């Protein structure tokens, strides 16, 4: 993984020292809250319902075991012994004291981490496919380009005051695991007819109150032009993006208002001015960054060893976990293991300090000391020898981390909702917990198969409900929580925004409504159809009829 050079480390250390002084001035009363708020937000410090919240950047979701141990230490020493992994591959601490935050930042800097670009109208921490470098369908490694974008964006003087926040996601695979069409800029690495690697560039996606899928503005951008082209997009946005209305300030609104074609023309015109120059990426610089992401020293192994086959045959619980949580690796004899942070009845994305330490230990033992954070709020060990899978599963099971539900109904994305968040209108977590409890029976859950259920506690859509097969949006009606259901959304390469199926359900009805939707699917489905396939074939009608039959 990428390691800080002297420049990175000095920069981060200086920012910590600066914030320490700013916090001291705030605590002494020298700075008012109005004066301090932009400063704390530039350091990822929010004020939520019950306490401050500190959001830590995990660039493109990649962590070393040392970093994960430090996060565990921070959770224990300064917080309440846990952290919350987010849909942007970050982690949040929910109870830091203001006076402790500079010390937390210093402890983060010690392991090459920080909280910059996790708030404000900046280019946010860049996200990528959590299976980068190991997925079988990968064309090129998105981490290299995500790191280049990180370096370009972190200290960009021109883009420190954008109209609104700006999110970039990169994938290098055919199957999109980075939800690129729901980002301000989505980048998809692919090869052209000449076999060269470049990017499909998509712009103007986003969720929130106006969900829009990003449109392609350039089919193939050669690698060396990545930064000049991104700069051209940001310039057009910085110049023309609306600043009069918070809700219309994202680039998606600009792209929609002028049209993707016209937006592309403006970007191309701007790009012609700057494409030859300091921003061109020299090949040796790309290779230098790529070296940080060189594959680990894999052993020469074969697929499907006899030890694995025997364990799968002997232990049904292991076989279930293997079926849902293990993904094919591009190297023979290796596998990708998803560690679900969605135990049935648990809080999606939460991990205790002890759990983080266990995962760090298992990463050291079985996966070259590296951990990935997924946008689905799970963790991944990306390089596990297939013959180690059984031992890994045993260790995970002992720690309560072997929930076999990756990609299934109970693998729910949920924002913190009204239990923690200042912006929320309704709670998300209890609904996720109750749905997961309802589908606790592993046979039933696996019979239903792959489906995404996502929950947001307000229209800002941090819980990705718009792009879920079954989306749930919490709303407040006269002080009471209601939940609106959308169906047919998708977050992959066939991304779609879900449609509202009908009137909202109350807290008591919502779990039954999800169950009804899945019952209709089971009744309607043809062999090998996933939920989304059936929905696309039959449309909303049978679901609607069943859901509102009694009304």
């Amino acid at each position, binding site marked *: 993984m990428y390691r800080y050079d002297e420049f990175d480390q000095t920069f981060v250390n200086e920012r910590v020292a600066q914030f320490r002084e700013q916090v001291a001035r*705030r*605590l002494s*009363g020298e700075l*008012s*809250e109005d004066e301090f708020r932009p400063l704390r937000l530039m350091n990822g410090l929010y*004020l*939520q*319902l*019950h*306490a*401050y919240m500190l959001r830590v950047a995990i660039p493109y979701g990649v962590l070393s075991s040392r970093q994960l141990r430090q996060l565990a230490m921070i959770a224990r020493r300064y917080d*309440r012994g846990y952290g919350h992994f987010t849909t942007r591959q970050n982690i949040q601490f929910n*109870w830091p*004291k*203001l*006076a402790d935050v500079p010390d937390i930042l210093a402890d983060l800097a010690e392991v090459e981490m920080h909280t910059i670009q996790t708030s404000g109208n900046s280019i946010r921490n860049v996200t990528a496919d959590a299976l980068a470098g190991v997925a079988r369908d990968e064309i090129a490694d998105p981490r290299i380009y995500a790191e280049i974008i990180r370096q370009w964006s972190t200290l960009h003087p021109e883009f420190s005051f954008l109209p609104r926040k700006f999110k970039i996601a990169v994938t290098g695979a055919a199957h999109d695991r980075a939800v690129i069409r729901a980002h301000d800029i989505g980048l998809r690495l692919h090869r052209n007819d000449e076999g060269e690697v470049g990017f499909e560039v998509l712009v103007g996606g986003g969720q929130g109150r106006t969900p829009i899928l990003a449109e392609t503005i350039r089919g193939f951008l050669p690698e060396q032009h990545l930064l000049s082209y991104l700069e051209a997009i940001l310039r057009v946005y910085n110049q023309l993006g609306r600043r009069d209305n918070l809700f219309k300030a994202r680039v998606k609104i600009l792209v929609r208002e002028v049209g993707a074609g016209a937006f592309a023309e403006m970007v191309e015109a701007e790009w012609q001015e700057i494409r030859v120059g300091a921003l061109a990426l020299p090949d040796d610089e790309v290779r230098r960054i790529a070296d940080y992401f060189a594959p680990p020293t894999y052993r020469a192994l074969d697929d499907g060893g006899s030890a694995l086959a025997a364990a799968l045959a002997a232990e049904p619980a292991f076989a279930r976990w293997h079926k849902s949580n293990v993904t094919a690796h591009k190297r023979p004899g290796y596998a990708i293991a998803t560690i679900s942070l969605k135990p049935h009845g648990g*809080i999606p994305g939460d991990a205790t300090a002890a759990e983080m330490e266990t995962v760090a230990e298992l990463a050291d033992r079985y996966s070259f000391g590296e951990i990935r954070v997924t946008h689905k709020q799970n963790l991944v060990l990306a390089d596990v020898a297939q013959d180690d899978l059984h031992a890994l599963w045993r260790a995970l099971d002992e720690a309560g981390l072997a929930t076999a539900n990756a990609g299934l109904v109970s693998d729910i994305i949920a924002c913190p909702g*009204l*239990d*923690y968040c200042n912006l*929320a*209108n*309704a*709670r998300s*977590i*209890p609904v996720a*917990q109750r749905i997961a409890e309802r589908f606790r029976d592993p046979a039933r859950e696996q019979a239903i198969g792959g489906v995404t259920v996502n929950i947001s506690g307000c229209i800002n859509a941090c819980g990705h409900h718009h792009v879920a097969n079954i989306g749930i949006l919490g709303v*407040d009606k006269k*002080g*009471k*929580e209601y939940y609106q259901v959308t169906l047919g959304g998708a977050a992959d390469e066939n991304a779609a925004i879900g449609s509202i199926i009908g009137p909202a359900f109350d807290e008591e009805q919502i779990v039954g409504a999800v169950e009804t939707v899945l019952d209709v699917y089971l009744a309607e489905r043809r062999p090998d159809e996933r939920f989304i396939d059936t929905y696309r074939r039959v449309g909303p009608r049978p679901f609607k009829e069943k859901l509102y039959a009694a009304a």
Partner: protein
Amino acid sequence: MQVQAVTANRLEDGFVVYLTPAGHWSERLADCALTDEAAAPALLARAVAEVTTARVVGPYLITVEVENGEIRPLGQRERLRTRGPSVRLDLGYQAQES
């Protein structure tokens, strides 16, 4: 007529606090100063004027109901603020009650 109170978050840790009749800030809603709608703006103005010395952030008015001497906020958001996350009963003020 609506009964109101003033709440804010404490500067040091962001914890929820309520303005008391004596002008202090308490973690307990039961200690809060109650006001009617007519007098509410003046009570809030007093709180806003004192944020620096009182070491609180963002005071605002909430509507409460008083039944048998017990003060309860209206709305799920403010009910959760008096207690803590409903999904972690071991955290927030509710943890001290059990």
